[in-house]
């Protein structure tokens, strides 16, 4: 689904990673994968205002013409579009940035380019997959989706895995090579890209050359036979060394057999195809319209960790309440923090059972220190009561959250329900 050219919506590399990881590592649930995909689509259409253009090409052209000025501004702000503009001549730049109609034409052309790119991409990807999938050790991954991920990520021909796979490809034997070429021919023939006729012809040419090779006698064997004969003559050590060295040199400069040359050509040709067609999507302009790449949203919604949210909120309220007074570093907490954070921190220091009175005392020391010394004795009772009330509320909240529970072991004690430092 993701690789077909008909579906205008594409997933960015990270998102694809996340979805695949969830599938492989959490549960082999196809339903969840589909749900994740649905979520991606919803998010994309909700948050990217230019996604009106993410649809079939014909429709897209119609819609481009009806884009409003604001939307044109949006397009101008896209980073990939900016790159494109910078690479143009300066008059064109000005025209692009100011003229809406000119912009619309350019956009149409760019979208078409994108469309064509996708079509070609798929075919070439399949072809590369045919080549690399049967190599030992799978340097580029065995499944086509991994290849797809690798290609999306960065320029695949710069990666080491690609190098190693090319080297291995150069060592393929003839029958494998022939079958692969035939498969490639099939792929290209069945694809809808219009530029592949030439490629198909070239590949067919390769195939015929291979077949011709079979008919030729093996000429290179003569050389090796002669060298063998030389070795078997009786010589003393010095002469033997000399002949061996000569043999080695001759072997190095040995003419490559026709098969090997052909093999080389084939591999180089595939390489050139890859370089021209498998450009990662990030380098194409206007890719943000079609690609959805914010993986964090996906993770947050599908794979949430509520415990972690609670933990950060309690330990580090600065994350949520952006008040300078709450800023704290390390594992500690400032004493102006909300009540529940203070109470939580204090209870972490205790063992299994917590004495409520001690807890209350500790809490009031902390809180009273914030409010400063109170010289007025009459109101200090009231203040005490308020502190008492705040403490009660914080403790009940902790109980609601499930950190403590009342204990019957000792009077007025509560038992901790969580371990360690959490």
């Amino acid at each position, binding site marked *: 689904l993701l690789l077909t050219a008909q579906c205008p919506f594409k997933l960015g590399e990270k998102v694809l990673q996340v979805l695949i990881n969830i599938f492989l590592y959490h549960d082999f649930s196809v339903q969840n994968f589909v749900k994740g995909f649905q979520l991606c689509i919803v998010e994309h259409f909700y948050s990217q205002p230019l996604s009106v253009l993410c649809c079939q090409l014909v429709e897209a052209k119609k819609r481009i013409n009806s884009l409003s000025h604001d939307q044109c501004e949006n397009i101008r702000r896209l980073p990939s579009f900016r790159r494109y503009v910078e690479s143009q001549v300066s008059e064109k730049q000005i025209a692009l940035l100011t003229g809406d109609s000119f912009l619309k034409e350019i956009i149409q052309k760019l979208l078409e380019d994108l469309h064509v790119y996708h079509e070609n991409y798929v075919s070439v990807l399949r072809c590369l997959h045919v080549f690399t999938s049967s190599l030992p050790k799978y340097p580029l991954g065995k499944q086509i989706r991994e290849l797809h991920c690798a290609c999306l990520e960065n320029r695949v021909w710069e990666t080491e895995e690609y190098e190693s796979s090319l080297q291995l490809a150069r060592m393929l034997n003839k029958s494998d090579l022939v079958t692969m070429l035939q498969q490639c021919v099939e792929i290209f023939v069945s694809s809808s890209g219009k530029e592949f006729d030439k490629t198909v012809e070239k590949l067919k040419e390769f195939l015929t050359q291979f077949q011709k090779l079979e008919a030729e006698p093996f000429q290179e064997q003569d050389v090796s036979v002669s060298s063998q004969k030389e070795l078997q003559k009786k010589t003393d050590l010095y002469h033997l060394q000399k002949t061996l060295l000569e043999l080695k040199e001759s072997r190095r400069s040995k003419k490559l057999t026709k098969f090997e040359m052909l093999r080389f050509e084939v591999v180089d040709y595939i390489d050139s195809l890859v370089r021209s067609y498998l450009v990662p999507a990030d380098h194409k302009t206007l890719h943000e319209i079609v690609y959805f790449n914010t993986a964090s949203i996906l993770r947050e919604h599908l794979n949430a960790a509520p415990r972690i949210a609670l933990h950060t909120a309690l330990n580090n309220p600065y994350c949520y309440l952006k008040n300078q007074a709450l800023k704290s570093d390390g594992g500690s907490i400032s004493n102006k923090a909300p009540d529940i954070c203070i109470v939580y921190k204090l209870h972490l220091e*205790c063992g299994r059972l917590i004495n409520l009175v001690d807890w209350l005392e500790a809490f009031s020391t902390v809180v009273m220190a914030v409010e400063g010394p109170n010289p007025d004795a009459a109101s200090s009772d009231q203040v005490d009561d308020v502190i008492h009330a705040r403490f009660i509320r914080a403790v009940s909240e902790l109980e609601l959250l499930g950190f403590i529970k009342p204990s019957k072991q000792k009077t007025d004690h509560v038992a901790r329900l969580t371990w360690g430092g959490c």
Partner: protein
Amino acid sequence: MSQPEGKGSGAMEVKFVPDEEVLKHIADDAGIKVQKDKTQLAVSMKRFVKKLEDVSDDEAQEILEEKNYVAALGLCAQDPIGSGSHVSGGEVYSFQTPKCTRKMAELASELAQMPGQSAAPCHSECPEKTAKTPQRSSKMYVFVLLMHVFSLLLQSKKKEFVSTTPYRLRKRLTAPDPCLESESEYSASCSEEEEEEDQKECSTVLSDQKTPAKTKAASTPPPRNTLAKKNEDKMSNLVEEYFEAHSSSKVLTSDRTLQKLRKRRLNQQTLHDLLKNAPLAYAAEIKELNQEHESLFSKWMLQLHLGFNIVLYGLGSKRDLLEKFRTSMLQDSLHLVVNGYFPSITVRSVLNSITEEVLNHIGTFRSPLDQLEFIMRRFQEDSSLELYVLIHNLDSQMLRGERSQQILAQLSSMPSIYLVASIDHINAPLMWDHAKLSLYNWLWYETTTFNPYVEETSYENSLLVQQSGSLALSSLTHVLRSLTPNARGIFRLLAQYQLENKDNPSYPGLSFQDFYQQCREAFLVNSDLTLRAQLTEFRDHKLIRTKRGADGVEYLLIPVDDSTLTDFLEKEDEDV
């Protein structure tokens, strides 16, 4: 925002993939190990690693893999991180460390001494600690208070226990604190893998891995060997500490009770009044935070209509947020609000309200499952019916049972029933297994408001608040479950009789003689004495109240309101 055109019917092809090919996809991936550490988002095969993991065996591999896994899942280049928290599981779930008795007071004093600055957590051992003299004169008060606290604590009985700990034990307690340990590990590992780790989470993962890294010659680079050795030493310390912490079953807390404080126990009302007058700290920030969440409302509506259900989690009461959602978005549509925190709510009542008020059907059902089927059928037949259900505290005491969750899950899987729920308990996600998760189809939203849990804690279950005389449904069921079937039968008789006469305002209660008569007929008791014994037991549990009538006859009354009693009886019938 226009939706994409319907994909043409011929455009998508569905290919049947036989099992072998599927297996090929899955199984081969699991076989190949991680080859590279350099690329951050390695597209290589990884083994299954849980994010929140316990101490386990082959560590180096797992460290590597977890890093890759976390990196793959955790990074997002394009998205600005809002309030995202990158806390690894190792920080949240750690082991117990041995605590000393006065650590809490010490921490409090530290926090108190430095207002406005952050206080470092205290590492030192307990017996000796000199109070730091405060710098400024205005802190004299704090100092005095501090001494007061210390003197109070010194009087506690448990001090003797601490001072008589054998020297060896105390020496163990001085062993480097896990925090310090982890920090040294952090620095060691940090220097080695600096080029690989720019993300905070990876480094915290590594620093919290207090596990030995068994050297694997093939995959671990040489620097890891030194790290491995260090880890091994720390591992044995950790093991000792673990058993230390868990071995002592003595409770090392002081013996003070609330009585000594001479504070009056507050009941619910005074608590409420006091807190109403106390100003809420950080009101402005909380408001800002809430406004951020409110901007998500329309997104929720869209996602609800697409078949997802929304669950909200995070610290703070989400009741107001849901109320706002209701008033702003749901004014014109049919909605049902369920207050999960109410201590006598049951799934039955939820279903009843749906059938009676939404579907206008008056009638009883044999079991909740029947009721559920009826509801589902009606919703399927009538496609214009839409119902929004807002549940506060889906994980409350009453709604967290297996059956309740199952019923709610099936209810929410209907396409025209939209569910928005909030959870609070730390272990709430545990109540959902795969089946329920797929029925619920949750989208998780983190809505941390720092609002106090006013409503949720105002019912019956807080510790320091005086309980009013009435019993909730849950306590009734709990107590009765621990009694013999005969006792249950007796109580049920009493309850039934009481319910029959519930409209009678001057109903004094069941007289003892009548009661005895009925019990005998039902073969629940065979003599007067046994009945009296049972009644004393009930009285001890505060389940019944006895009054002496004008003519000297004892009347028995259950001090629970009628609706609770009816609910209770229904539940009993169901269970039996």
